[in-house]
């Protein structure tokens, strides 16, 4: 029981981060059908900028805020200088552009920061909480709580505001969105900015648990992509579900089989989904295809 709980919490914690990455994928995919493989770099920037600002003496909350702002600036620039000029190119071209951008961002990060692994102090100390014999890191609760806030906040924004409706409208029918006077370019810029902020937040919250380096983005992008595929790409609820499931699968595979196979889980999931469940668990509701 204790071991089960331990693995469960570990899985939920990384799963929450995958969910945030997958949510970022979903936002951009909905607004443009582009799969943004630079999504993982936002997580990396969140962690790394916070680490280096904190080391330079900036208080942690300010360092975190700075990291989110940097990630948003990078996300908006990615849209403005790489995606927007390639307007009219095929989706495959745009996806390759995002892969190039991710390599570029990683290269810059390696120069600006370094090649070491870095940690942050846990926000509320390292003293584990005891729950039925399992030891749970307080930072895990930060990750889960933060992710939950993001998911609920984004949902409310999308459902309750006119701009949120405009984002959903652009996802549903881009031509119609332009014809009612929505500036779809701004919607896409918004999607890039918010995805970057969400990714960065995930990176900040999880760095005390998992450490970070300039290179963590690649694997995170792949896992977030696997999570989004698993949940049904383009579906925000599916993204969260897929992320949490993938985190749990990884955690239990590492605990019960062997930690050697942990990273293989995401690839197995991608392959299984591609072969057996191309729509993902939640897919696109039939009505969206009317």
């Amino acid at each position, binding site marked *: 029981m204790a071991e089960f709980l331990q693995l469960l919490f570990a899985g939920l914690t990384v799963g929450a981060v995958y969910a945030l990455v997958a949510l970022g994928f979903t936002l951009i995919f909905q607004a443009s059908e582009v799969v943004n493989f630079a999504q993982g770099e936002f997580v990396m920037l969140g962690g790394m900028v916070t680490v280096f600002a904190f080391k330079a003496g900036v208080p942690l909350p300010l360092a975190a805020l700075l990291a989110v702002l940097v990630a948003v600036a990078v996300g908006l620039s990615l849209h403005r200088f790489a995606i927007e000029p390639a307007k009219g190119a095929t989706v495959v071209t745009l996806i390759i552009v995002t892969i190039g951008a991710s390599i570029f961002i990683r290269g810059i990060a390696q120069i600006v920061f370094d090649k070491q692994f870095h940690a942050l102090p846990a926000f509320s100390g390292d003293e584990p909480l005891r729950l039925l014999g399992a030891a749970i890191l307080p930072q895990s609760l930060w990750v889960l709580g933060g992710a939950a806030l993001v998911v609920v906040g984004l949902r409310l924004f999308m459902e309750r505001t006119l701009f949120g409706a405009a984002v959903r409208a652009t996802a549903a029918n881009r031509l119609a969105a332009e014809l009612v006077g929505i500036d779809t370019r701004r919607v896409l810029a918004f999607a890039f900015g918010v995805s970057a902020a969400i990714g960065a937040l995930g990176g900040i919250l999880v760095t005390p648990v998992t450490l970070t380096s300039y290179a963590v983005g690649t694997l995170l992008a792949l896992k977030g992509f696997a999570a989004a595929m698993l949940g049904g790409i383009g579906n925000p609820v599916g993204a969260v579900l897929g992320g949490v499931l993938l985190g749990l699968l990884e955690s239990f595979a590492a605990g019960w089989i062997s930690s050697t196979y942990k990273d293989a889980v995401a690839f197995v999931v991608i392959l299984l989904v591609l072969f057996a469940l191309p729509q993902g668990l939640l897919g696109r*509701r039939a009505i969206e295809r009317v």
Partner: protein
Amino acid sequence: MPPEPLLSVRGLRCGYGRIEAVKGVDLEVAEGEIVALVGANGAGKTSLLRAISGVLPLFSGSIRFAGEAIEGLAPFERVARGIVQVPEGRQLFAPLSVLDNLRLGAFRRGRARTDENLERVFALFPRLAERRHLPAGALSGGEQQMCAIGRALMAEPRLLLLDEPSMGLAPFLVDEILATVARLRAQGVTILLVEQNAVAALALADRGYVLETGRIAHSGSGRALLDDPAVRAAYLGI
């Protein structure tokens, strides 16, 4: 000199890649008019309307609206100026509620007038009021067309572009839609109407244009076109 028409299109060419769908069209719509644009399938009617709305780039030509050149404006800026389109095939936001579809129609208008305009649309199409919380994709064909027209009206159009509003509808609904078009004109909306039902459209219109493989083949008053033997033989099937 007569006042400048509300919309004036000169030498408009547009298309898709190397395909030229509209090959140099001149067209005018004066304030308060209903102008019909008819022609066979593939003649370029939809492409022309898309170019006027700015969602299809021009190869060349000019578009003036309310005295200003607008061909350089983004689609949303044209909506802001009052050029609003009900696109072919309705193009609703299917997963969004009817109410959200209508509210989004008012995206470029002040929130203050949205409620008032909603009331007006619901008065025009009471069915929409009953179904306001349903996803637009769940509406019947006729209701979807009402929703598409309602969504356009929410934008307070000065010029309404209607692309085959009766497409796929039962005959009694076609009459209802055309009656709505007449009523909108009476309320002061200028209308450019594309219709497959050419006889009904020309009968309703002040003036008309016949488009043939991307060029204007005939133009004149609705009556004159209806009476023109060449037009009758080629397009009206009578």
